[in-house]
């Protein structure tokens, strides 16, 4: 039973082993919601690939954070807040200035008017918004529908909440929503649908038609929607649509977002959840016991960031589109099958033309022989087999880095 919690760590000494066994006997053997479920969630694939990358001096197009920094005006706002003494506990659900800025931005983006005091909750990144939403609104045994491939924390957080996962797989080339399949998995136990648009890892953006179909389903069956929209400002091929703005949807939607991707400050951990008061209440309760409050100086800076003029967002999109072109052209020329990515800073490709047996093998080969890191997408599926032909590249790197990576692949990657 030691395996129910332990992961690959150095073997403990003799005395400790017997204690570990004694102690783990206290943990029941049946598949309980927490410890047993989390057995498969060991060190994340990202950490593993990053370690391998460092070892081989590979260019990291795996992990989704920039190798350039955030804008000066936001950093300066944080520094000013620290100097002004804003270093103690913020109000649990957010510094009022930030809550207002979030509400203002949401109105600009969706036309929806929300009450910053009752409908906005600030969290330690969107990751915590997701965790608080699950724990605050999902009961053990509730069914939650998920779209694979999915960001890797979704499955683990749903397990923590004791939810039963129903998974719909999105398939290449366009990863569109199979609406009939979606309808077929809805049951009387279904509590919510968890969606992510623009979508990590595929870059797919949910279309108006798809959102309409999901909305009808939710209204008909009285479902909630948890919508992760962290990449909403990285929408290139079409406009981002928040499902909360569809008729009948705001009252049943939790819209989640964060500062990190839009402002290249992924380490600041400022996120938020926007929801009607009766849903916000559950999110806030869970949040207040998960982290109690979010880092104060960064919240002040985030308020400044969110009030950035439209020109900031236009420039952001232009920069990222240029980076995307470099990467996509490179990947195409090397021989990958590149699937169209409408948003985010990710692109998924089919690697099978290079003759490796699966995505993990291909990524290891890519690091060791070519010197470039990608992420094997099988980790984003409930059934890893479904992802074995695909790997994910990111283009949130400066142009030089992208060009170097493309060069390396042109020189060293050969089809089999």
């Amino acid at each position, binding site marked *: 039973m030691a395996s129910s919690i*332990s992961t690959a760590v150095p073997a403990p000494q003799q005395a400790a082993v017997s204690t570990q066994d004694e102690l783990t006997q206290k943990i029941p053997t049946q598949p309980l919601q927490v410890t047993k479920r989390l057995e498969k969630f060991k060190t994340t694939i990202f950490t593993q690939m990053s370690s391998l990358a460092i070892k081989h001096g590979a260019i990291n197009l795996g*992990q989704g954070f920039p190798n350039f920094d955030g804008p000066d005006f936001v950093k300066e706002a944080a520094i000013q807040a620290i100097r002004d003494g804003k270093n103690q506990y913020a109000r649990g659900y957010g510094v009022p200035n930030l809550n207002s800025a979030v509400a203002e931005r949401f109105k600009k983006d969706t036309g929806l008017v929300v009450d910053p005091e009752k409908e906005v909750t600030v969290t330690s990144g969107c990751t915590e918004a997701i965790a608080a939403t699950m724990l605050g609104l999902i009961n053990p045994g509730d069914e939650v529908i998920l779209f694979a491939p999915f960001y890797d924390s979704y499955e683990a957080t749903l397990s923590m909440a004791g939810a039963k996962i129903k998974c719909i797989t999105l398939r290449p080339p366009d990863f569109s929503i199979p609406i009939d399949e979606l309808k077929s998995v809805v049951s009387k136990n279904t509590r919510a649908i968890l969606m992510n648009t623009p979508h990590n890892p595929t870059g797919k953006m949910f279309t108006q038609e798809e959102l309409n179909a999901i909305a009808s389903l939710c209204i008909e069956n009285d479902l909630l929607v948890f919508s992760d929209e962290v990449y909403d400002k990285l929408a290139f091929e079409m406009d981002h649509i928040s499902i909360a703005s569809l008729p009948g949807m705001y009252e049943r939607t939790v819209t989640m977002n964060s500062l990190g991707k839009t402002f290249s400050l992924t380490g*600041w951990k400022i996120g938020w959840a926007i929801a009607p008061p009766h849903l916000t209440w559950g999110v806030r309760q*869970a949040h207040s016991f998960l982290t109690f409050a979010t880092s104060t100086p960064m919240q002040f800076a985030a308020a400044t960031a969110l009030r950035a003029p439209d020109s900031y967002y236009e420039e952001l999109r232009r920069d990222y589109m240029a980076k995307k072109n470099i990467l996509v052209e490179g990947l195409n020329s090397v021989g990958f099958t590149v699937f169209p990515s409408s948003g985010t800073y990710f692109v998924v490709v089919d690697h099978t033309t290079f003759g490796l047996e699966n995505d993990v093998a291909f990524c290891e080969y890519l690091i060791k022989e070519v010197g470039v890191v990608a992420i094997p997408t099988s980790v984003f599926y409930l059934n890893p087999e479904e992802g074995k032909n695909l790997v994910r590249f990111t283009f949130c790197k400066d142009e030089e880095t992208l060009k170097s990576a493309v060069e390396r692949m042109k020189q060293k990657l050969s089809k089999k």
Partner: protein
Amino acid sequence: MAAVQWKLKQAADDKFCNDNAAEGRRMAEMEKLSLVAKALTPSPIQQLSYLAQRYNAINLAEGFPDFPAPPHIKNAAVSAINSDFNQYRHVQGICDHVARKMKEMHGLDVDPLTDIVICCGQSEAFAATMFAIVDQGDEVIIFDPSYETYETCIRLAGGVPVHVALEPPNWTLNLDKLKKSFTVKTKAIVLNSPHNPTGKVFTKDELEIIAGACQTWNILAVTDEVYEHITFDKESHISLASLPEMQKRTIVTSSLSKTFSVTGWRIGWAIAPAWIASAVRNIHIRITDSAPAPFQEAALTALSSPPAYFDSLRSDYESKRDCAVNMLAEVGFKLQFKPKGSFFVFAPLPENCTLSDVEFVEELIKQAGVVAVPGCGFFHTTLCEENSSPAALSYQRRYIRFAFCKSEDTLAAASRKLSKLVDAYAILVSRVRAIRLGRLVSKNSCFKVNSLISCYVAHLAILLLAQKSEHSFK
């Protein structure tokens, strides 16, 4: 069910004032919350601080400093932001420092590579620990009174909190009570020392009792040691993990917040044997993924502070403690138990005061412009108590927690305001008795606290006005 709810929604939209429909919708909406969320109530500490804000009261309630954080640490954070330490990071150096400190303070050998998890504050470290070790139905023992969050974290993880009362006036640990609280379902015990709200520092003897119980019953211990560097009168903080046979079954949680006066930075950690630490880490990664990067960097500077920093932290807080204790004594509190650690005084109401803790604090806000925390929020009905009766538990409405993590100016101002109240107060006490007797006798007595307060507030206002005309304010 869905159709009914849809109809209710339509009705509510069409006729907003229709009580039935609105109520129906409210009921339907409440169903969306998880069972745990529905059972929770808003934090009493936060509610009172809203009232205090309205009255612009001096805040001796909330446990965070109103003086600036140390400059060298703020500079380190600024420098980190400027040096582009702004993306997802794990700063291993924090683990190295924490391991070193555990060796220096407690003689413990901790592996910085496997035994330490950096989290968003001790809050998250504790929450992640509960999710790592508590299964549905597991019992977790907590000493009462206790910080409000422990119980809720345990429930969120599916566990059952079991409270063991520390005995007033000195908050002593009763071995029999402790023994009686263990069952086959007990998974862990939570120990907060130095202790919020009492300021108690658990002694070596008490820790040995707790350690013995942990071993006899083969359970885990989770400690909250955030006030580890704030102890007085030459008292040392001893970590439960440092007792023989305890390291392998203890998860220590702590943070930068109280030691370095940066409660808003959210940098904390959990220390545990590798097999538990890795579970805590896996959960932390799914709750927040990482702690704020620039503050992790600044933590390196903080944790490298020289011994002189910790010495002056201790002596500064000791003089603040003395100031707070004197201030309360002058106002009529009889403090049998002086805090030995943390930055709180848990003061019992004077015997002749017939107000409850909540009533007293509301008066304190409105009449003296000072806010503290009524102790009732820290007490929980002790189900394990064989002799629990309303009378036996009446002390739970008799304590007020005052925080002294405030500047000298704040403490001096609070002292002045409190001493003005005390003259009027003696008269107030006897008046209140009369009011209450009258109400009990009245046929229409509807004994609500609010109406009682407004009644004697009026009396107090008259008294204070009378005083004003006689004395000039300084």
